[in-house]
């Protein structure tokens, strides 16, 4: 069959993206957990009969880049010949295309006139999936088994009949079975929305045209991606960055990448990356691939339709047994959120050499995952929170970095305070911007945040997997890294129990190896936990920043007067006006604390 006419193809292509968005809307409205209903920690995509992604909606990048591997693996492991109408498959195995165990992928083959025509899939973060830490993120895990129940591809519906025994087994191993079951049903609803829409397409266009559209959509994306890559200068670009530690033992962990641009092909080779570690920050192949795909879109044309075709010109070498492709049964919970972020940083630095005009300062470099379990003092139910924190993104040529945004690997949304407090036994005492947390530059980084929450339950169990406590995000093209937060580290976590005189780090309170990774620490009622995130790195020489922009930052409380003077060479008076003479003198002198090193 020849390719479709451009208009029909465009109508179907946009329609399939709309289909994926509709899945997401159904998902968010039906979900029980605020992680999904408010935070949108899920993703929706449509795969064709060849188990290749043809459309996705703009949800979570780390899900969307790895989901193709999970779907491909699941269909191969179960076997296409064993699929029937009404089947629904569930899967969360990190070593079969998954990310971390709380991220479940649900998919279903859709048949029309007995022919497999599509496979809609949704990946959603479950609030708890068993394991040693309530809510997941056990910062001390050394094996995947400590991180929760591992589910290879299994049918949870067989020919339309729900496999209730499978549900029993699964839900018996989680702490909040009603919530988790509700969220799984929301995922099922999203699948059903997609199924209806796929059938409508088949009725309207016929199976052959629908299948041809899938092939054409992928080819179109491949052409677009190859054309974009061809615009980049050929060459070899290398960069490295480090994780603070693995939570088990002190010591930095190297992530290295060599980017090769060769005509219309891009190669990312992670040779030189450290071997996989004992702690829970190992990334799986799917996680690494997600970051590669995401950065390629960031550095080319983000409007390109993201599907299997766009991935064809991108080659990934992720040596097995390393931090970017851990082997079973490594602990991987934080690889999806922390190492992924470092992989993105390394790729950004490689691309900054190839296309400096698209360079960007480093972001705060973590999802700063705080989870806690406690019994609600009034309702008596066990409750679990998962708070991923906002921070600052890096400055770039087009403007300052974004302030108080979720890490770019996740693209999730903030869980509003009102929703949070109405669900959980925690009271917000502070939620503010972290002044002077941004790296300086012609365009500065965005700001991080400071959040303080008081536990209202009699007792709570807390866990954390975070990063960039010791090493700051970097600036780009003369922009600077942020200074450490006032509490000591860059990103930070402290707590104040009723018996503590002041806030203390967990290394002091509990004797943990790492200040950024721990699990199952018990805190009493009234304890205040403090989560702090840093801002992004700056872009360009800070002394070239418009003095009026610096003045506005001082007035808005983003930058202190002292920092304005030291970092930008701008003197702002106590009344908030620019002292032009003092500023000129400082800038002519051309020195600052930063420049002086």
């Amino acid at each position, binding site marked *: 069959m020849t390719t479709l006419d451009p208009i029909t193809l465009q109508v179907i292509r946009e329609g399939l993206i709309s289909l994926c968005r509709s899945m997401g809307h159904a998902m968010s409205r039906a979900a029980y957990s605020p992680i999904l209903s408010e935070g949108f920690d899920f993703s929706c995509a449509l795969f064709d*009969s*060849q*188990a*290749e992604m043809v459309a996705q909606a703009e949800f979570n990048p780390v899900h969307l880049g790895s989901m193709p*591997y999970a779907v*491909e*693996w699941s*269909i*191969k*492991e*179960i*076997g*296409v*010949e064993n699929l029937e109408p009404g089947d629904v498959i569930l899967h969360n195995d990190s*070593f*079969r*295309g998954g990310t971390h165990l709380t991220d479940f992928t649900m998919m279903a083959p859709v048949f029309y006139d007995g022919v497999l025509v599509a496979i809609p899939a949704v990946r959603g973060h479950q609030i708890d999936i068993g394991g040693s830490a309530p809510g997941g993120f056990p910062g001390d895990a050394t094996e995947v088994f400590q991180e929760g129940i591992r589910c*290879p591809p299994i049918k949870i519906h067989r020919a339309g009949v729900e496999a209730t025994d499978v549900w029993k087994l699964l839900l018996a191993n989680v702490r909040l079975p009603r919530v988790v079951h509700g969220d799984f049903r929301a995922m099922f609803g999203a699948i059903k929305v997609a199924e209806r829409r796929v059938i409508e397409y088949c009725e309207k266009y016929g199976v052959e045209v629908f*299948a041809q559209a899938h*092939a054409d959509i992928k080819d179109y994306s491949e052409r677009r991606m190859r054309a974009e890559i061809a615009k980049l200068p*050929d*060459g*070899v670009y290398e960069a490295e960055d480090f994780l603070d530690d693995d939570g088990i033992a002190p010591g930095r962990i190297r992530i290295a990448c*060599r980017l*090769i641009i*060769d005509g219309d092909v891009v*190669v990312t*080779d992670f*040779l030189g990356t450290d071997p996989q570690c004992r702690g829970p920050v190992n990334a799986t*192949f799917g996680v690494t691939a997600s970051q590669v795909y995401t950065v390629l879109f960031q550095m080319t044309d983000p409007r390109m339709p993201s599907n299997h075709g766009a991935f064809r010109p991108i*080659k*990934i*070498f*992720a*040596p*097995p047994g390393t931090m*970017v*492709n851990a*082997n*079973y049964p490594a602990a991987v919970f934080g690889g999806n959120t922390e190492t992924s972020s470092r992989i993105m940083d390394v790729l950004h630095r490689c691309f900054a050499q190839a296309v400096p005009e698209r360079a960007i300062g480093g972001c705060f470099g973590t999802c700063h995952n705080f989870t806690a379990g406690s019994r609600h003092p009034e309702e008596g139910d066990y409750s679990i929170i998962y708070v991923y924190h906002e921070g600052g993104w890096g400055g770039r040529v087009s403007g300052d970095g974004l302030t108080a945004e979720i890490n770019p690997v996740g693209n999730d949304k903030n869980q509003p305070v009102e929703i949070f407090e109405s669900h959980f036994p925690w009271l917000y005492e502070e939620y503010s911007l972290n002044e002077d947390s941004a790296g300086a530059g012609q365009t500065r980084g965005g700001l991080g945040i400071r959040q303080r929450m008081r536990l209202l339950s009699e007792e709570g169990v807390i866990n954390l997997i975070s990063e960039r406590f010791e090493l700051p995000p970097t600036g780009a093209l003369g922009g600077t890294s942020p200074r450490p937060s006032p509490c000591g580290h860059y990103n930070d976590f402290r707590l104040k129990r009723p018996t503590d005189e002041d806030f203390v780090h967990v290394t002091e309170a509990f004797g943990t190896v790492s200040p950024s990774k721990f699990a199952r620490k018990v805190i009493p009622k009234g304890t205040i936990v403090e989560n702090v995130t840093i801002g992004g790195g700056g872009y360009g020489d800070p002394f070239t920043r418009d003095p009026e922009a610096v003045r506005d930052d001082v007035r808005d409380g983003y930058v202190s007067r002292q920092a304005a003077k030291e970092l930008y060479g701008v003197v702002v008076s106590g009344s908030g006006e620019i002292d032009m003479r003092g500023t000129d003198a400082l800038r002519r002198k051309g020195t600052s604390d930063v420049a002086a090193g």
Partner: protein
Amino acid sequence: MHCEGKEPLMSPPDRAGLEEFSAGSKYDEILQKCHLCGRMITSHPIVHDVEGISQDFDSSQCIEDLQRYRTRFNELFVDE
């Protein structure tokens, strides 16, 4: 004996059953990866009658890529 003349509640397993049991489980979780690029390889290839189906991982392509991009990367852009 109280069970005299009655079938025991649990019959002793026959020899064949014991041998099968002693042979152990054959369960094996296939989680193979290409040792060159690291991508997963399933042991269950897709059986499908649609042309252009996803191909199982082809390591010959991987060898070619590695020769081109890793072994010779230093000379790659000098040669051309």
